[in-house]
């Protein structure tokens, strides 16, 4: 949508779908879903990245001309996340980072205290920080106050495919956001992605829903369409919900018996 730019940290993107590649069964599948999704931004766990080897993940993403968004997946403390981000900046020559600091391996929920700490340190060190956060409007506000360039609330825990469990909170975050809101984690199928956009999110980040689907490239297509559909629906303005029927055909002038 040319008249509806999606701008993160001053960079305009055409696609509002951001992809992660975790769980992809092969590099060929990674390549296929990158193309099918139309994404322009792809997040990569720095712990798993290997920028030096030909045929590696970074290499496959680079060849498609797609911007790499390094992330700090697997980090549990602020100090670990900051160090991982610094390594990513050196290895990939980008100051963008998807900041992920999770509390435990069972829920993979963001640890809000460590997250705020790490976000503050990274912003001060000149990073463009995109934090993966809880669906907590107050925490989202605090992250923006620190200078994060986007906020990325979860729909539900990573990899669960449970969709958006608290749509009201997502709406609250959107309603006062001064930076892009990107729904990150929990997307299970296309309708979840469409809902995120209808709620007013500026973009959607997903991985497992595509990479672990039986036909990943087809699901990537579905997600691209869903994000576009949801964005159109949001901008078009939905009709109010009513309790009683309201005929779509006019009734004026019809005979009354």
């Amino acid at each position, binding site marked *: 949508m040319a008249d509806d730019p999606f701008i993160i940290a001053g960079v305009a993107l055409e696609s509002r779908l951001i992809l992660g590649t975790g769980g992809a*069964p092969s*590099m*060929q599948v990674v390549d296929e879903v990158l193309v099918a999704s139309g994404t322009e931004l792809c997040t990569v766990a720095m712990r798993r990245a*290997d920028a030096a*080897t*030909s*045929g590696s993940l970074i290499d496959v993403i680079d060849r498609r001309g797609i911007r790499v968004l390094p992330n700090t997946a697997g980090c549990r403390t602020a100090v670990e996340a900051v160090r991982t981000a610094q390594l990513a900046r050196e290895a990939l020559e980008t100051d963008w980072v998807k900041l992920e600091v999770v509390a435990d391996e069972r829920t993979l929920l963001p640890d809000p205290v460590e997250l705020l700490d790490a976000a503050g340190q990274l912003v001060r060190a000149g990073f463009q920080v995109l934090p993966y956060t809880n669906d907590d409007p107050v925490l989202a506000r605090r992250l923006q106050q620190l200078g994060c360039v986007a906020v990325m609330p979860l729909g539900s825990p990573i990899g669960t495919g449970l969709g958006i469990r608290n749509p009201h909170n997502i709406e609250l975050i959107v309603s006062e956001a001064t930076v892009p809101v990107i729904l990150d984690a929990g997307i299970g199928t296309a309708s979840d992605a469409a809902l995120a956009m209808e709620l007013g999110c500026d973009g959607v980040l997903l991985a497992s829903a595509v990479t672990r689907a039986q*036909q990943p490239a087809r699901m990537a297509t579905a997600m691209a369409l869903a994000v576009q559909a949801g964005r159109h629906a949001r901008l078009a303005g939905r009709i109010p919900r009513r309790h009683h029927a309201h005929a779509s055909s006019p009734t004026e002038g019809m005979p009354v018996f």
Partner: protein
Amino acid sequence: MSTTDVAIVGAGVIGTAVAWRAAQRGLTVTLFDPDPTRGAWRTAAGMLAPITELHYAESALLRLNLASLARYPSFVEELGLPTGYRANGTLEVAWDAADLAALRDLHAFGTSLGLSSRLVDGAELRAIEPGLAPGLPGGLVADSDHQVDPRLLHAALTTAARAAGVRFVAEEVRDLGALAAGQVVLAAGAWSGVLGGLPVRPVKGQTLRLRALSPLASGRVVRASVKGSTVYIVPRENGDVVVGASSEEAGFDVTPRAGAVYELLRDAQTVLPELGEAELVEVSTGLRPGTADNAPLLGRGEDGVILATGHYRNGVLLTPVTADAIATLLATGETDPVIAPFTPSRTAVPA
């Protein structure tokens, strides 16, 4: 300058098996490798499991896997040495309802491809293998998925190749073009990309070797999906148990990573609680030769070098069919139709 009909680079299970088969066909063969233990075979568990390792979008590879599995009984019989080949079948176990749902989908996909396996409930699983954790919701029985011990297999292949007249040279080859040979075979596993300018990358894998007091009673391989992560437990005849495997994109790094060991033991103990009491004998790290589509490169490459590489996680399984087909190519110039889909020139992500 010494000459030989065939120079093979890499004395892992693939290179050594190709050497053996080529020598059997009357070719003079020289096998180059300063240290065959670098190969992925040493870390591999040796599962021969095309059914329980089925992946969506790998149906061409499945056919090659099945063809190789079918050759295993005669292959190991012809070797006539211990290989640890065990035809006890495999159990695939789900930990929770979501794991079982994924397993059911994969079973339906496998059935649509004509594969034979059956879904069972938790009670039946534990009747077959009483050591499994209580409460498992169900799983899959694949009676035709087996195992071999890659370390025994490699030793047997080495002995057989020597007996067939293969010359072993413990030298590093750095330039394929400099080899004085009629034909050159590249079987250098994860190093094939660097040596041959090929789209092959190293994919690090870790496995553990445990010694259990009371190993799996059924002698079956147990594969499990535990909250979405896969682990396998492979019981040898002698009571040793192999647990695997991590999968990491880490270049040529082969240092063991503590977190990978933890995750393997966590998931293995979850499905087989008694493993916590086993002796931890070894942590092993190897480099799988990965290709973009996870399938091997088999046949003549652009520069005339014959490729037998890129077997990724199926090198041990694919050893018999690779050795047979590459030996045929060396001896007759004919391409066995079974390897035709895996020609190195097939379109894939360029690397």
